[in-house]
């Protein structure tokens, strides 16, 4: 295993090789049969295709989703298959097409609204929060909003401050919304299908860098009726010394950190949250009660982040079980810089997760003493 890892790292670029080797591990660990591989992009595309085919009320709307096949090619082939009535290219107005999507959902259609990146959803956030999220409650159930808002969220590579913001914490604070963050292709397929079928408004946070990554998918996942439950986290790797929670790209980093920790005798349990709202508090707490230590990992900014919520939840439910303070690994508290060296310092790296896990396990000097 070690030898293979070493070879892979030497060959390709950082992301490609590390994730490919991780998926190789994944394959050898969990799937004994010849597993088919699928990129996250294809997973999302196939999920959209199948849901549009199954329900004529589902339609896709956004900038460049039609003729251009999607800014990130997620909606490739859909215009050709379903026509311009169901794959709608819009003028450049997030506020406009989000409002239109909400209105269409009010009247019974099931829109899947694509934001080119969730950074641009800021221009439409009133419709998402004040209309989509709250309408069912404010109208006392008369207006339901079965809408999905999807698109890349969080950091890409070298795109600067206005294209790298993670909105998981923002949307997850709002009652009425459901917020999902897939990691693997299985997650992408299962969660997007669940989101489209769900009668509530769902914010679906993808990751640009994961689009091209391949993951093994079983026959069950490939079936058109496959669906994952919303609100259930997945234990990607079992362990007994420390719990690491993560979502989206950070799951991959956490799994690699777990590999490194394993060599040093620390057995880390990695939880892929999958669902940020509702948060799977019971899985997280059950894990912490087993390991007694917690490291939360996210790309977003530290204040009021997802990790803060998880920490509060664990303190509320499993305080007596904690043997060490909860460690939060987050992005730096700065607008994302562009220069590659600075950008690298602005986001969690695998080493940061390893160090945090060690601190939680009292294997190294705590942060305060270093400072």
């Amino acid at each position: 295993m070690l030898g293979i890892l070493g070879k892979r790292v030497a060959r390709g670029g950082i992301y490609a090789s590390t994730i490919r080797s991780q998926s190789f591990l994944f394959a050898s660990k969990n799937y004994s049969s010849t597993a088919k591989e699928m990129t996250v992009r294809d997973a999302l595309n196939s999920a959209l295709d199948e849901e549009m085919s199954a329900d004529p009320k589902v339609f896709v709307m956004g900038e460049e989703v039609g003729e251009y096949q999607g800014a990130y090619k997620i909606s490739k082939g859909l215009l050709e298959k379903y026509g311009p009535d169901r794959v709608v290219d819009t003028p450049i107005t997030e506020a406009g097409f989000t409002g239109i999507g909400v209105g269409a959902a009010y009247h019974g259609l099931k829109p899947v609204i694509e934001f080119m990146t969730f950074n641009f959803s800021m221009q439409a956030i009133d419709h998402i929060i004040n209309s989509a999220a709250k309408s069912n409650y404010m109208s006392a159930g008369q207006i339901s909003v079965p809408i999905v808002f999807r698109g890349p969220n969080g950091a890409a590579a070298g795109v600067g401050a206005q294209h790298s913001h993670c909105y998981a914490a923002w949307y997850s604070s709002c009652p009425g919304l459901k917020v999902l963050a897939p990691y693997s292709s299985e997650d992408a397929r299962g969660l997007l299908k669940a989101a489209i079928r769900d009668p509530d408004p769902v914010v679906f946070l993808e990751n640009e860098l994961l689009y091209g990554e391949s993951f093994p998918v079983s026959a069950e996942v490939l079936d058109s009726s496959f669906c994952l439950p919303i609100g259930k986290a997945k234990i990607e790797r079992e362990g007994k010394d420390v719990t690491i929670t993560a979502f989206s790209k950070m799951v991959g980093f956490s799994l690699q950190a777990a590999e490194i920790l394993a060599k040093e005798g620390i057995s880390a349990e990695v939880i892929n949250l999958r669902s940020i709202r509702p948060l799977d508090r019971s899985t997280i707490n059950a894990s912490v009660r087993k390991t007694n230590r917690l490291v939360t990992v996210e790309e977003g900014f530290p204040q009021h982040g997802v990790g803060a919520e998880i920490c509060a939840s664990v303190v509320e439910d499993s305080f007596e079980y904690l043997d060490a303070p909860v460690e939060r690994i987050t992005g730096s508290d700065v607008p994302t810089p562009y220069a590659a060296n600075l950008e690298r310092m602005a986001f969690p790296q695998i080493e940061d997760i390893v160090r945090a896990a060690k601190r939680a396990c009292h294997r190294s000097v705590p942060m305060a003493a270093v400072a």
Partner: protein
Amino acid sequence: MAIWFRKSIKITHYLKANRALWGLVNQTCRSPCFHSNFSSPGSLNGENYRNPPSFLGNSTTLYGSRRFESVKAGRQAELQYDDGCHQDQALDFPGGTVAFTSEMRFIPEASRERIPCYRVLDDNGNLIMHNSYVEMSKEDALKMYSSMVTLQTMDTIFYEAQRQGRISFYVTSIGEEAINISSAAALTPEDVILAQYREPGVLLWRGFTLQEFANQCLGNKADYGKGRQMPIHYGSNKHNYFTISSPIATQLPQAVGAAYSLKMDGKDACVVTYFGDGGSSEGDFHAALNFAAVMEAPVIFICRNNGWAISTPTSEQFRSDGIVVKGQAYGIRSIRVDGNDALAAYSATRAAREMAINEQRPVLIEALTYRVGHHSTSDDSTKYRSVNEIDHWKTSRDPIARFRRWVDGNGWWNDKDELELRGKVRKQLLHAIQVAEKVEKPQLSDLFTDVYANMPSNLIEQEEALRQSIKRHPQDYPSDVPV
């Protein structure tokens, strides 16, 4: 003008540098560029323009000299351009063919005349000669009239109730009864309404009872909104009237989305959305109109231009000729209507509905009117406008009185009927409020339902925790909220 003057200097430099092009232009376009648009040199800055420099004033001299120098280049350029269509002065650009002009003329920021306003009844309620309007039966006219009176009475009584502390908040539509009722009367129950908040008359027309209004304002158990919203945020699925949402103009793109949905269903219905002059400043207004035109959505945009957005008069809200010209700017058929003329508003809405559905296109109606009441019970408009102005519109420009004169004139109504109607409605309203006040408030579980389609586990836990807390400390819990 001064700006133009500076530009002209740049242009002559440009001229010198591009003789061939100008030669070409002069071959094909005989009329000189810099000509008599500037008929009022006195309006320009400084004395430079009292005697316009020769290069500007005398076009033949200008072009004469240029032509001699550029003839050869001009002929060459002309040969390239010669496709036999000298008469078609058209340019091909993305977006279509457009005629060109070598006359530099800026479209003025305002037309000489404002778009005229369609009205059918004069201020005395008499039909204006040579009009076009949709005829109305006695029955329909009386239904419209009594609805307008009911709306006005309801507004007055609920406003008073707020002042007495019986409800927390209220928004009247005094002065805008004609728009409310007439537009509603011109639609069918299948047409979907997305209103702003000053259109309860539309819901009233559709059959929402005074008791139902009172229930919503008092937030009791019978309220269709389960007591979750402030007063006047009505909504009713069965009346096809979407629940009112406070943020301004968000209903506009939503209306386009709903219209898109109707279009896909192929229904014989349209969406009608209302907003005020202030709402037209929101980004959502622009997005909605633009989209509606592009998507060819069957939606009617009705703007109640009532002159005021809380304390902001229209002169501070926009500098265009109202909202009607904005409709055209987006490629939408538009009309300006006297919003206080019930017949005109009715006719225009009827016509708009036909167009929207039969031609599958958006239509804009700008209804000019006046907000007689304060913005809401939290506002005192005498602080920013004169009491005389308010009084004038309340009395001599009252849309109800005006419609009444027409109805009376037809022999369909009289003072006795009026007294009876007003007395009856007032009594009903007072009774409705009394009843609504006595109805229980919504039960505790309504705090937690409808956040999602199915109650999530954390809310189930929270509700249970709250009930436990109530059991332990019953004295701290209000007695009028059923557990």
